[in-house]
């Protein structure tokens, strides 16, 4: 662990030198280069690689590797010292756990998501809305409540006064979707964007905005990053560029601001 840190120290010393060299009188930010690892929420599985492609095109010489999992798992990995450069979670509380533990920098909110009900193709249990989920014999999959998708599902059901006894509490939202696609459950509570990404393989019921709940996605550079320049560049790219935001819109994510 001490080795990467000394590399970081050495490279930041080098950056300082470069910034003060006469050739670069104006301290312009150094162009990002090298490899970074991005730990991202499972619901970003489809959209983040597309954003990464655009980023790598804009900054030749950069490579982005991904680690997709449930947000809480990602946060625990970062706290345990996983060699990760950027963290993007599906809720603010999960991100604050990492920030408060001193492992992530200032988070920027970059996207917003809402919930939907996903059913196997043909909707065999004839799910028409949240109320259908409490019917006897309807098998429902949710995320475990420690996960953003689980917390959102719980909030959604409470908000609408619906009592559901799920048959399984999956450990990331993609696992919920997998159980739906396999036809093993009649319905799963997932993000709108998940339904969109696998649309022909699932049917869905949209939930009106007034009844729905939202979750916002923060992104932050990890404090122990070996490549803080590229890490912060990616964070800024996701939050501020029309290119990244356009890709997020295309995948069904809303603006959080």
């Amino acid at each position, binding site marked *: 662990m001490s080795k990467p840190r000394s590399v970081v120290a050495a490279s930041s010393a080098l950056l300082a030198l470069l910034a003060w060299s006469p050739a670069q009188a104006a301290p312009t930010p150094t162009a990002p280069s090298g490899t970074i690892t991005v730990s991202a929420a499972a619901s970003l599985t489809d959209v983040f690689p597309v954003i990464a492609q655009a980023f790598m095109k804009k900054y030749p010489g950069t490579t982005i590797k991904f680690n997709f999992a449930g947000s809480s798992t990602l946060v625990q990995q970062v706290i345990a010292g996983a060699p990760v450069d950027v963290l993007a979670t599906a809720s603010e509380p999960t991100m604050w756990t990492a920030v408060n533990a001193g492992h992530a920098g200032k988070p920027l909110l970059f996207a917003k998501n809402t919930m939907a009900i996903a059913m196997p193709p043909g909707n065999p249990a004839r799910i028409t809305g949240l109320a259908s989920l409490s019917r006897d014999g309807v098998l429902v999959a949710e995320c475990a409540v*420690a996960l953003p998708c689980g917390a959102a599902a719980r909030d959604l059901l409470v908000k609408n006064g619906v009592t559901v006894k799920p*048959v399984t509490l999956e450990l990331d939202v993609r696992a919920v979707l997998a159980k739906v696609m396999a036809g093993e459950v009649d319905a799963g509570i997932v993000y709108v964007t998940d339904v969109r990404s696998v649309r022909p393989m699932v049917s869905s019921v949209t939930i009106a905005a007034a009844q729905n709940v939202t979750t916002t996605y923060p992104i932050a550079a990890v404090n122990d990053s070996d490549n803080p320049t590229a890490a912060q560049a990616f964070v800024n790219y996701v939050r501020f560029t029309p290119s990244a935001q356009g890709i997020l819109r295309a995948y069904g994510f809303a603006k959080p601001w």
Partner: protein
Amino acid sequence: MSSTRTTRAPWFLLVPGLLALAFLIAPLLALLWRAPWGSVLDIMRSPVALDALRLSMITATAATILATVLGVPLAWLIAKSQLPGTGIVRALVLVPLLIPPVVSGVALLAAFGRRGALGGFLYDTFGVQLPFTTAGVVLAEAFVAMPFLVIAVEGGFRSLNSQFEEAADTLGASRWTIFRRITLPLIAPALGAGMVLCWARALGEFGATITFAGNFPGVTQTMPLAVYEALESDPSVAIALSLLLILICVIVLVMLRGRFLRPLAAT
């Protein structure tokens, strides 16, 4: 005797050997080091832990019984019957042991899921669904753990001296009596070892269980699943639950010390 020469380990075996030992022990020691000792008992007595522990004990035991009832006859067929193709059968039995458990889970869904080849029939005809049930957990554990039992018991059958069975046969004992009174007692050590291995593997099953049976406290959430879910929210709870699992394994090892594990080396 040159025993002093052979017992002194040469450095090229001693060093990597000790390294291997350290590699196997260090993570467990680290777990002890990180354990939240102040609250370990409270966590172990929490409803989540007790539910998961009870479920793990029940399902691992049921899976071992299922594997024994079906696996012992299969081991006999492979070891003793002169049926053609036993070599292939033996290789097939090893497949669930070698493939990743999550693949086993996907395969079980394909077979016994609500839309599976057999599961579809069960569901449409009897309304029986195995995923998300405790029976589904037992099925997943038995699928993954049975090969351990079959291999151990097959070794027992193979090394069996058939003189006793032949003697009983000439004295007019029926085949069932011979199997029950002669064969089974003779393979008891191998059977015991196989059952312990099978039970331990079933107790630790994660991938096939979560893929096939899902995760719900009290119904399908066994100890390994509870450990994984606890990692999402509170790693210290996960460590405490892990210690409980390790403790169970140590207790089993101590209880069986020398009794079943030695014959295993012989098979």
